[in-house]
């Protein structure tokens, strides 16, 4: 019942030292870094524990794509409750991965966040119910218990209920799928790449479940993107370009080399004491590959792109839900490096 206290902090410190030593130990890299006046590694904060959701960044680091692009990057994992955008503002991280809806809200709240690349093009968010619960439509969720993670992640779900005039009983939800398995909640929030498959790995067969895909319901909130602060974007555009380019290379590599990527992910998981298995990480890698490709059946979107339409859709929804006061200008938030 005690909380896991920052093994991560210790780990992070260790990694920091290790990467500095590594950089200085390699004369060619050191020379390159000098040339670019980048003496310390930048920190890329990922918004959860190690898992295949972040395979591209792990492989970019693993295969040296960051270094080759001219930026030394240190990956930092988050713990539950940690807010990567806050880390950017605090200056503890230079770059982070975050959700678009969250970024818009932060921007509205005055935080100078910039999206460098919208990596996931499609939402993986689901609402899952038992078939036996009799919930067949969103309207059936009226008065039923729905588990929500709390915070930014729920925006999409709340918008979904609002549009359908559904009033469920909202119950807090952790990363655990047990409340849903035990029937403590009727509807669970789930990411296709994670919780949904955890249910399958707990012996639930897909035909026992009824799944509502929020993306299919017109709530296409694209999730993971690469963010930094406006000042980083302005002052260190070379590092921004290098990080975005190498990330893309990392993703290309990860999706093309499943076995090697899973090896690296599992290594990170073990190092961070994350209990998972290869089968789950493989599912996740394949699922996020689909999210990167873009809307199902549609033309694959250009890597890292974010259209003003999609942005506008998400922002309007947030405005409708009164989660933001005004819609931040698209050009302010989305400043891709190749522009």
């Amino acid at each position, binding site marked *: 019942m005690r909380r896991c206290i920052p093994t991560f902090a210790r780990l992070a410190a260790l990694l920091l030292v290790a990467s500095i030593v590594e950089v200085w130990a390699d004369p060619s890299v050191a020379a390159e870094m000098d040339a670019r006046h980048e003496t310390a590694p930048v920190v890329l904060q990922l918004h959860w524990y190690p898992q295949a959701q972040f395979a591209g960044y792990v492989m970019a680091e693993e295969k040296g794509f960051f270094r080759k692009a001219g930026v030394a990057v240190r990956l930092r994992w988050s713990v539950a*409750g940690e807010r990567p955008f806050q880390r950017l503002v605090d200056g503890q991280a230079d770059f982070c991965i975050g959700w678009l809806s969250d970024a818009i809200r932060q921007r509205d709240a005055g935080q100078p966040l910039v999206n460098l690349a919208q990596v996931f093009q499609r939402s993986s968010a689901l609402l899952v119910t038992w078939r036996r619960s009799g919930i067949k439509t969103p309207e059936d969720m009226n008065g039923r218990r729905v588990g929500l993670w709390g915070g930014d992640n729920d925006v999409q779900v709340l918008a979904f209920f609002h549009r359908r005039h559904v009033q469920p009983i909202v119950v*807090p939800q952790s990363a655990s799928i047990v409340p849903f398995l035990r029937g403590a909640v009727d509807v669970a929030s789930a990411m296709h790449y994670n919780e949904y498959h955890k249910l399958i790995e707990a012996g639930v067969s897909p035909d026992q479940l009824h799944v509502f895909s929020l993306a299919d319901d017109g709530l296409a909130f694209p999730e993971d993107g690469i963010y930094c602060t406006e000042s980083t974007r302005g002052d260190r555009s070379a590092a921004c370009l290098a990080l975005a380019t190498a990330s893309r290379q990392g993703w290309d590599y990860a999706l093309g080399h499943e076995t090697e990527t899973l090896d690296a992910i599992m290594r990170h998981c073990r190092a961070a004491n994350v209990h998972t298995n290869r089968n789950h990480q493989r599912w996740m890698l394949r699922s996020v590959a689909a999210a990167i490709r873009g809307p199902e059946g549609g033309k694959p979107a250009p890597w890292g792109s974010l259209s003003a339409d999609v942005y506008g859709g998400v922002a309007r929804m947030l405005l409708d839900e009164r989660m933001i006061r005004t819609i931040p200008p698209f050009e302010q938030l989305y400043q891709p490096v190749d522009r």
Partner: protein
Amino acid sequence: MAFSLRNKLILAVSLPLLAVYLTVLALEYRAGRAVAIAQMERHLTALTGKMAAEIDRDMATAAQAARSAAATLTDFQPRGREPIDAMERSILATNSTIFGTAVAYEPGAFTTDRQRFAPYLHRGDAGGKLQGVEIRYDYTRWDWYLLPKLLGRPTWTDPYFDDGAGNILMCTYAAPFYRQGKFQGVVGVDIDTADIQRRLKAVDTHGGYCGLVSQTGTFVSHPNDHYIMGESIFSLAAWHELAALDAVGREMIAGKTGVRRLSDVETGRPTWVVFAPVRSVQWSLYAVIPDEAVMAEVNRRLNRQAAWLLGGLALIVAIIVAASTWVSRPIARLAAAAAQVARGNLDVRVADYGGHDEVGHFVTTFNQMVGDLRENIEVRVRETAARQTMERELQIAREIQTSLLPMARPPFPHRSEFTLDAETAPAKIMAGDFFDFWFVEDDVLALVMADVSGKGVPAALFMAVGRTVLRNFSVPGQSPAQVLTVANRVMAAQNEKNMFITLFYGHYHVKTGELVFANGGHLPPYVARQDGTLAVLDAPDGPLVGVIADAEYGERRTTLAPGEMLALYTDGATEARNADGLLLGDDGLRAMFAQLQSRPVDEVCQLVLEKINGYRSSPEQDDVSILALRRAAAG
């Protein structure tokens, strides 16, 4: 000796025996396997059941403590923290299986000024001093708080890792408490699963291991630490694509008891899984044992049996080898001896084998046979030598006999009054025919054509005698009848074997062509007359020569005109038979002479003999002799 008698024996005995042994071993194996599996099932079902019950009991005891505390808090509203701390101390003091306990309040429920309040008391390292902390994080989202709250009843959480306490995998039983029907919070007790893991590791499964899976099929206890909380039965089944494992996993999380045969996810070898539910926590306790471990004792026993059986078989083979060597050695010696015999060595003998059995009898018989064979061959060799000697002598006799006949051709080259030739074709080596001619006086030529009864050496000898007698008594002044009468008397007197001769004897007067002749039972001669006819001379009818001592022979006369030819012959000519058995006969022979009468005498003799030989089916039928005399043509 690729397939010697011995090898055949060995195969004939050992193959059926081997088949029987293998069948026995296979049946043993089946029976043993059934027993071993039944034993394993009994043992492990009992074992897992017992372990599950033990864990269940501990869990139930811990759960009871939480439920009691929750009931107390429902009835009694503590003022201040002290009663709560006391309650927690009491729980840990009375329940050694409980690792830690917390009373967690709904925000604002303990005191209105505190959002959350959750004092936690737990055991220190190695069961040392109790340590108290206040839970700072937002526990209201956590399963141990949320589940009893939402379900409205006490419940166990799934196991979860607590990183702060050094990788302690724990699970919590939490009971809700209420005030006036309103949810106030939960009382939770933690169980350190390390204790259970240790207990399971110590269980003797006879070559396997025990473990636990939670309600989600996730491993709580497993020999591979990486599996714990990471893998579930279903993740393994999916990764390794084992549908059977998936099905077993579903049975396990459904709280069933069972024994299933699966293939091991890592080795792929057949493995048994026995499982039983730990009902309070909805876990499943399992024992895994490789099939080879189940069968180890059976296999050991079978190996021992197989060793004994094979040892026995080896002994039997050794006995066969010895016995067959004992039997086959004299047979091999016999074979070698037989080979020597085949090469002609008849002196070979097989050493006495000493046994009075079939082989001993065989050896004796063989030796006897070789001895007999040798004797036989010696006799044969002697006989052959004797026959060869005799044949040589007969050849000489024949040469002598032939030399008795007038050899010169033409016989009288200085006499122009006539031409004469004679030929004989003997039936066997020694012929009984003979002819002769000589000048009794200057102008009188004696002519003889005779046929001795019988053939071969006796006939030849009698012929020699006859010829000598004739020549001796044929003196000038004697007529043919007188000569024949005297010769007959002499020959009859010496004829103890009762042989006889048919004999034509004549005196031919070369100047006049007159022929005076006597005949002792011989066939009448032919005369080819000037007019072209072939006449049969009317010969005087005298008895066979050498039979009747006082027989008197008459004589006749005829005259050959110039150019006329006299032909004498023996009965071998007229009695020649063709392949159909038909006799040539007097007519046939006369026709031959008639056809050839104008030819010179040597050709007549030669061609008539050829014709007769051509007619008759085999030359051995009888002797044939021909004599032809032609008076020279006038002028």
